[in-house]
């Protein structure tokens, strides 16, 4: 081989080497590009939080690791920015030179996230903590436990039990979703809550007497009462007067938007026998599509706008909270903004809300009109704008027609008659005013609180099995096979006890209900046999009708605009009376309590 050939070979090899290096370069570029998408943003621990991170990285590395994965870390928001407290705050304490508080409230978050906090404050979510007088709370505090500590039955081997905390079920159950009333231990053995501290608008306590009573541990830190903490319930009543907890949905310490966008996040509370929204969603076409297409839904996107970042499937957040292409990508932290029916109470009501965001219960059309700040129609339109990303207007309107019909059918066939029967039993004192001490009270509670809600929520989110078999079928069974027989048994007992007038009054209501055409099927055959006659069912007495048609103007959206029709006018005298009784003790308690955010 000559020198020249060798030189040429070397030249060729050199260029081949160049080729392989170009391939290396291409791999490097591809790697960089992939890394840009995968690798976490560079983060730096803010100087003010440096010592927090150093120490907690050893003592509780989980919270540091979570924080490192948060947007807070990327933007240089450290520990003290959120946990910072004023020396005057009730729960403030000195922690290695920094004045901090354990519980971070919406007021703290609102220092930066202003709009979000305001929207949240206006939402039903924020009011979820007001359950003290509600039916649900009575259940957990009294029926399931006991409001006062009580003595144990017998010793528990190996575990000293002096007193039983009867509030255990409330603390672990109710309050973990609804939120607790945050309490500090007092020197006198009592508790100090927001009620004692009387904070001003900025959250600073104004009652120095209460401040002075706060018990402190050896390090000078106030002690949080375990009845109220740990707690991230969405309606927590905080010491600074703010309502709620942002970490209910944005779990600390990574506050992941990705997680808040997924149904599992809502599923901590919106599930179970009384409001299985999560399960309903999962069985719907929406949930099925989400499970399948989750990976393509761009859940890490910065704004996550429906129609721009994704369209594959809706999650809870998509419909109730997230921004979409038709509203300019505006996210709301009030999930009630797009809900037109409140399916929470025994009888569904439309979501006309007042300036404070509360659902209006006023029945007088004129007064009602004055109170309304946002109509249910506006809310429905807001929801339709979400639906329209995947469905035609015709489809959406037809869906709402089906949904309205379903709710109205439930209201008129079972909820209002059931309510009427319960009311007359109370009125005639055939049952006591105490809750849950009679079988029929449990029956009625099951009917509207569990089965009735399952049915309505099933219809609202397109899960047919929940609408029917877990819903209306069980409502009907409860109504015909338990509520009516139990009411009649109470009538029978009253008759035997000589309370004839009361018994007759109740019996009249029951018979009036059953005589209505939609209920006639139930006993028509039996009556036929009893009478032994060939004559068919008598037409229902005309006089009954106005009584039984329980103020449609206030209950069905379709009828709201027709408030001035002659029929309604004619019924006015009667309905006025019925209206008073239609809002019975049970409903008042339940409503005052907001035991569940409506329908969401």
């Amino acid at each position, binding site marked *: *081989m000559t*020198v020249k050939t060798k030189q040429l*070979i*070397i030249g060729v*090899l050199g260029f081949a080497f160049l080729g*392989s290096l170009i*391939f*290396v370069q291409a791999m*490097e570029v591809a*790697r960089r590009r992939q890394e840009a998408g995968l690798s976490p943003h560079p983060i730096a621990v803010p100087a003010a939080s440096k010592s927090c991170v150093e120490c907690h990285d050893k003592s509780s590395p989980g919270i540091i690791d979570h924080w490192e994965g948060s947007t807070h870390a990327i933007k240089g928001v450290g520990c003290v920015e959120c946990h910072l407290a004023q020396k005057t705050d009730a729960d403030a304490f000195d922690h290695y030179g920094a004045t901090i508080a354990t519980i971070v409230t919406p007021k703290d978050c609102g220092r930066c996230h202003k709009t979000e906090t305001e929207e949240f404050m206006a939402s039903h979510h924020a009011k979820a903590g007001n359950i003290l007088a509600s039916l649900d709370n009575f259940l957990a505090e009294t029926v399931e436990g006991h409001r006062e500590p009580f003595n144990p039955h017998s010793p528990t081997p190996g575990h000293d039990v002096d007193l039983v905390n009867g509030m255990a079920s409330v603390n672990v159950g109710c309050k973990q979703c609804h939120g607790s009333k945050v309490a500090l231990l007092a020197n006198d053995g009592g508790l100090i809550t927001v009620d004692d501290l009387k904070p001003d608008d900025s959250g600073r306590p104004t009652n120095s007497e209460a401040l002075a009573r706060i018990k402190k541990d050896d390090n000078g830190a106030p002690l949080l009462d375990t009845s109220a903490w740990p707690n991230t319930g969405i309606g927590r009543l905080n010491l600074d007067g703010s309502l709620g907890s942002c970490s209910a949905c944005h779990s600390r310490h990574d506050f992941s938007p990705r997680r808040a966008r997924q149904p599992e996040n809502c599923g901590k509370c919106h599930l179970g026998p009384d409001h299985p929204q999560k399960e309903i969603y999962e069985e719907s076409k929406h949930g099925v599509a989400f499970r399948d297409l989750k990976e393509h839904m761009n859940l890490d996107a910065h704004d996550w706008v429906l129609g721009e970042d994704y369209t594959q499937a809706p999650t809870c957040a998509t419909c109730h909270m997230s921004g979409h292409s038709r509203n300019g990508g505006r996210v709301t932290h009030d999930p009630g903004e797009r809900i037109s029916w409140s399916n929470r109470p025994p009888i569904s009501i439309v979501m006309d809300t007042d300036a404070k965001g509360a659902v209006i219960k006023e029945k007088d059309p004129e007064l009602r009109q004055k109170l309304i700040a946002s109509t249910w129609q506006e809310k429905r339109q807001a929801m339709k704008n979400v639906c329209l990303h995947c469905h035609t207007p015709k489809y959406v309107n037809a869906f709402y027609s089906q949904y309205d019909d379903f709710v109205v059918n439930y209201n008129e066939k079972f909820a209002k008659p059931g309510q009427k029967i319960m009311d007359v039993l109370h009125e005639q004192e055939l049952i006591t005013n105490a809750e849950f001490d009679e079988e029929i009270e449990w029956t009625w509670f099951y009917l509207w609180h569990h089965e009735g809600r399952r049915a309505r929520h099933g219809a609202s989110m397109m899960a047919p099995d929940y609408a029917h078999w877990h819903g209306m079928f069980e409502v009907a069974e409860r109504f015909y096979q338990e509520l009516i027989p139990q009411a009649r048994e109470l009538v029978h007992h009253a008759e035997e006890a000589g309370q004839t007038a009361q018994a007759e009054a109740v019996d009249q209501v029951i018979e009036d209900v059953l005589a209505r055409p939609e209920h006639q099927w139930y006993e028509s055959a039996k009556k036929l046999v009893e009478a032994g006659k060939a004559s068919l069912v008598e037409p229902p007495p005309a006089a009954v009708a106005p009584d039984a048609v329980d103020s449609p103007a206030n209950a069905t959206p379709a009828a709201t605009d027709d408030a001035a029709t002659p029929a309604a006018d004619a019924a006015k005298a009667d309905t006025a009376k019925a209206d008073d009784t239609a809002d019975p003790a049970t409903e008042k308690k339940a409503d005052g309590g907001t035991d569940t955010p409506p329908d969401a």
Partner: protein
Amino acid sequence: MSRLSDWFSERVPISGDQLRELTNEPVPNHLKRWWFALGGTPAYLFVVQIITGILLAFYYQPTASTAYESVRYITEDASFGWYLRSLHKWAATLMIASVILHQLRVYFTGAYRRPRELNWVIGMCLLMCTLLTGFTGYSLAFEQLSYWGATVAANISDAVPLVGSFAKQMLLAGDGYNDRTLSRFYIMHAAVLPTTIIMLVAVHIMFIRLHGVTELRFEDEPADQPRHFNFFPDHILTELSIGLVLMILLSALATIFPATMGPQADPQTTPEVIKPEWFFYVSFRWLKLFSLTFAVISTGFIVGAMFVWPWIDRALVKATGIKEISVYIGIVGTLLLIGLTVWEAVATH
């Protein structure tokens, strides 16, 4: 132009002819066949190792707490870090492979025989240094496997009679792997062993120059062909093209099988399967076959025999009268070598 060359030749008083004289060792014809140029291959790869090694040292930190992270930085964050690390890793593999091939060639052609026995011994020293460099380098990544590999190796050396525990102490800077072990490995890998190799290579080449390369003639060569060709530029060009082929090969290996990151060393958990680098498979399998003491002593015996093979060979030839006895022994040895390596490679425990 001439002013410049005048200026230069005045300060570096050597003429082109003298330079040619110095470097131009006549190269025997058989070196035109590539398998005789295997000695140059490890030399070239060694240069690659020095360059990539220096580059990696820019980022590598030899402490237990930062070593793994710094390797991760090189592999994941630094531009082309993964490529240079892969080059270093693959060049090491090829270097050891070519050293072994070079030695096999020398062995089977009997090139170690009189008067070149001493160069064989130096070659053996080079082999030992190369293997040690490979071992220490592998430990530097501070991955689970390399950590436990080093631990096991240290405990093996502990089994050597008399000097064992001393050797272990010297290797680990203590009774067990500790904070000072890694810097010991590092300085061995990056300074002591490379310097030793450079000096040994210098002596190795000096011996070659003094003796001349063993000349071989092949039957297909015309008798009147000159028996030598020029080192410069002829042989240099051959080496250059071999170098480029190696670079392309290394680049291909580096991109197809880049060096990855194993799990970080964890002194509390021994991995289910621990294996050393492939070039220690032989001794690892050997250790599993026999008791520790026997395996260690026999390994020492075999290595010792290899060092003094030129004299053993002569004694054997004299004793048996079979001139090719070393070839037969070599075939058996090589098969054993390959067999044990393959066995260990396919075995899962």
